């Protein structure tokens, strides 16, 4: 499996302070890199592998070609197109040395995925610690949310890291795809689970997400039995997984698990398409080229309410 944490290091592709949407209060979200799933609609394509990857932000490139001069791996090329020299990038050739970044003054290139130690991550979030104590209107305080990729891949790292910030509220945004021992560890040290529920039908789940969903359901049952705080997250992609049987499945899950606080619809958006292009990857052609509309969201909410579940909201 890619991205296995070794010697308590973990690949992180972003740390976002002042996050307001991934758990209570004001939070820091740590995005780990690497995921065992391969959801076709994924909006974080840079999180798929655990290795460093080059991203080329074409709109920021001024065509100075300084990167071409320093790259020893043939990643950057000058190509004559219609009488004009343009910059071509081959990210698949990239060895992650970072030489090109040292000459790009326009932030047109970035390498995603730094190996963090526990101390490095602590220093990175240190600025935010005081903000976790701010109580917001609902009386709740903030904390740290682990996201990804799949943060459960790095549970040893997370557990060890939490030793540095005792008392801080913790949340994890997860697909739930992990071994029994990992999920037990998570249950011990994580306060809130933002748990994805992607596709009900197991065959379709495998087609769309690359893995079977039985482990995911089993782990959810375990966390539920352990009385953990759970918010179900529902990525809904128009024409892909907003099928009657999946909406039935959502309704059934929520009805049979009344202690689940609520479910949040995560409407499909297309931010991932641009990022895929920046990584030199082909976006999945089967996915819609435009995001879910307000009408889609209202329809989903109506259909779920009709099925008798009222604790479903728009994220």
């Amino acid at each position, binding site marked *: 499996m890619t991205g296995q944490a070794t010697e308590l290091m973990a690949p992180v592709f972003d740390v976002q*302070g002042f996050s307001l949407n991934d758990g209570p209060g004001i939070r820091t979200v740590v995005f780990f890199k690497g995921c065992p799933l391969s959801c076709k609609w994924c909006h974080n394509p840079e999180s798929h592998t655990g290795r460093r990857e080059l991203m080329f932000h074409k709109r920021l490139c001024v065509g100075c070609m300084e990167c071409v001069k320093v790259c020893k791996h043939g990643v950057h090329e000058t190509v004559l197109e219609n009488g004009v020299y343009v910059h071509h990038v081959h990210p698949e050739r990239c060895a992650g040395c970072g030489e090109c970044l040292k000459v790009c003054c326009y932030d047109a290139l970035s390498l995603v995925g730094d190996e963090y130690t526990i101390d490095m991550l602590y220093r990175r979030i240190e*600025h935010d610690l005081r903000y976790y104590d701010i109580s917001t209107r609902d009386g709740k305080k903030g904390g740290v949310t682990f996201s990804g990729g799949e943060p459960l891949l790095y549970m040893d790292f997370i557990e060890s890291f939490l030793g540095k910030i005792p008392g801080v509220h913790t949340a994890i945004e997860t697909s739930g795809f992990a071994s029994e021992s990992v999920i037990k560890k998570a249950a011990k040290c994580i306060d809130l689970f933002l748990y994805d529920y992607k596709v009900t039908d197991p065959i379709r789940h495998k087609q769309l997400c690359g893995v079977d969903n039985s482990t995911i359901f089993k782990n959810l049952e375990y966390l539920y039995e352990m009385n953990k705080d759970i918010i179900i997250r529902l990525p809904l992609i128009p024409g892909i997984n907003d099928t009657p049987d999946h909406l039935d499945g959502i309704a059934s899950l929520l009805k049979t698990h009344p202690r689940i606080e609520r479910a949040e619809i995560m409407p499909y958006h297309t931010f991932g398409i641009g990022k895929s292009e920046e990584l030199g990857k082909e976006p999945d052609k089967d996915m819609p080229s435009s995001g879910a509309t307000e009408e889609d969201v209202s329809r989903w909410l109506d259909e779920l309410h009709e099925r008798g579940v009222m604790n479903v909201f728009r994220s």
Partner: protein
Amino acid sequence: MNHWKVKNPRPDLSFEIAFTAAYRKAKKKYNHPAQIELACLQAQYPAVLMPIEDNDVLAGRIQFGLVGYGIQGQTGGTGYYIDEPRVTQALERQAGNAKYREDLHDLLTFWKSRNTYGQVFRNTPKEISEIIPSDKWETQPVAASPIIRMAGAYIDFDKLVHIGICGLEDEVRAALDTAAERGKDPVIYECMLGALQVLRNCCAFYQEEATAKAAVAPTAERKKEMEDLARALDGIQKHAPESMLEGLQLCWLYGLMCPLVEFGRMDVYIGDLYVHDIDNGIITEQEALKMVQSYFYLIDSLDDETDGRVIVGGYGRRNPENADRFCLVACEACRTVKEILPQFTLRFNKHTPENVWKAAMRCIGEGRTYPLLYNDDVLVPAVMNAFDVDRERAETYMPLGCGEIEFDHYSFGSPNGSLGTLKILELAIHGGYDPVSDTYLSFKSKRLDECSSYDEFVDIYKKHLERFIECQAKYERYIYDSIGSMHPFMMVTMLYDGCIERGKGIFNGGCEYLAGTLELYGNVNVANSLAAIKKLVFEEKSLSAKTLIDALDANFFGYDKERRMMLDAPKYGNDLPYVDDILVDLHNYLCQKVREQAPKVGLKSYLCVNINNAQNTTLARWVGASPDGRKSGTPMANANNPSSGSDKNGLTAMLNSIVKPSHANMAGMVQNMRFTKETWNDADGKVQYLLVDYFQRGGAQSMITVVGKDDLYNAMQHPEDYKDLIVRIGGLSARFVDLKKDVQQEIYDRTSY
């Protein structure tokens, strides 16, 4: 710059010609500046007043002349002024007959040597002009520049409302009666009485117009409004204001005659009359709101985007309950008058009522950029220290224009100079030489590559700063003295503490607390540049000073790798002690060095301000590449905010950084925050709690724009659809689509959370 929003401007320059004739005549007849000023006031008012417009419930539209008299530059000019380019334009249009064109030529030649600005600048003592030779900061590279004007008159509106014209006349008459025995000059008192008579004439002028408008009013409602207005205009000629309408009307007309651009603590001076009228059923809330809206529209009509302050809230109000009730109407007027002015300002503290705070948050949430928030619990103690005054005085602090602090109708702290700290760093790096203009703008010193340590270089940089700071303090004093000897500014003088008793013009010994402020631009870029120099050149030694200078001189062409190193050096706004400490050290040095000048030049205080008014873009055009990786001519960071895009650790880290520099030794610092609508309106109110936390831990000030980043992008593409989009640029709010493209881009690039 200003066009004074009036519907039907005067078709020709006959006012300007008549004003010039009146000045000539007065100059021949009188020697005393007050007599000449009175003659000019008589020529100017009500001649420049314009008709009441359809939605006005208060009278007082104005089109200042292209020649005229004023105090603060933004209403045409300081003292006697001429707008040469526009008079020339009128001439070039070949309008009018031969005599008219002769008269226009006469305006140009007559005022060339007589306009106040020109006289002040021309007669600048050599010891100053040798160091600061140019006032052309918009078009030339300068390290420091004078700003010749008298900005920031905050008159005693509360006293005016309490005693009215009659009471003020009584006070002046009493002073006149005893002038001889007190050894005072009686002429200024006689002229003050004359000036108040001009004010009466203006009231009568509009009373007549309102009466005429009532007679032909299209609706019963409009008829009543005009009848009420005519009665109020009559009333204020006879007695002190007895209603909210009378109070507002008197303040507005008095202000126009100064002419003022700042409108004081409105909740204090109108609060009692508002409560009186409401509680006695004289007016409805709706009528009160309409009056305040009308007042706000009139302020906006002055078209002076860097001023037009209306202040509410805070400590030091004599009538907090009534004032707080008025605050709610004022917030609603601010929310609904979707114009650039007034710069509505809320002073708040831990006792500010929740409904006032909520009304303010609602305004901000709707993208108004107002109110500007000032935290009294931090600022009052800071002001006590910086200005060396007691708490009672500190509680009367007033931010003027872009954010310089003064005391209500007591002190004057006109910001009359600017200091380009990044330009001066460029000079220090090059040993006093300015590569942009190819001249020495400062003394010859060791270049950066001749310095053996970081500290040695910083010492040299500070010596360059010191040279200009000392000179700017002298300039400030000189401008006060020069203008003070020429102009008594009687309308302002009469409503400044102690001036009537002293019988002296405000800048001629009248003002109790004469202060000054120096505007700083570029501090954040300097701190980032110093951090890069310290780290790369002196600590890591990964870049030689020689190479660094070569890279800057080449504007980084061929030095991309070196530029990337400079861009990657620590940047202010990320809660990084390495660079934040450098900024704090620079800030403390500048505050202290500026402050030390006050006793040397005989001012009560001389303090720096770190505000903005688009000069971060304008001054930067003439600053070459800098060691923070900034390319030649591109904008500098705005006030105390991180450079565009350099606050990479997010809002929380940015807030940690910006609370580090102290307010306790300066006269104002501006902090911009921009949020998208979605973030601001988050259901749990997380941002607003964050804001409260920021203020609780020492945040002094905040100017907040709530806008969608998409809105800005779309506004650049389709300006026609975004005419109402107002953004905050440090010290002022501006219509986004009216800004130059580079300024628009700079705003877009600033991080928005």
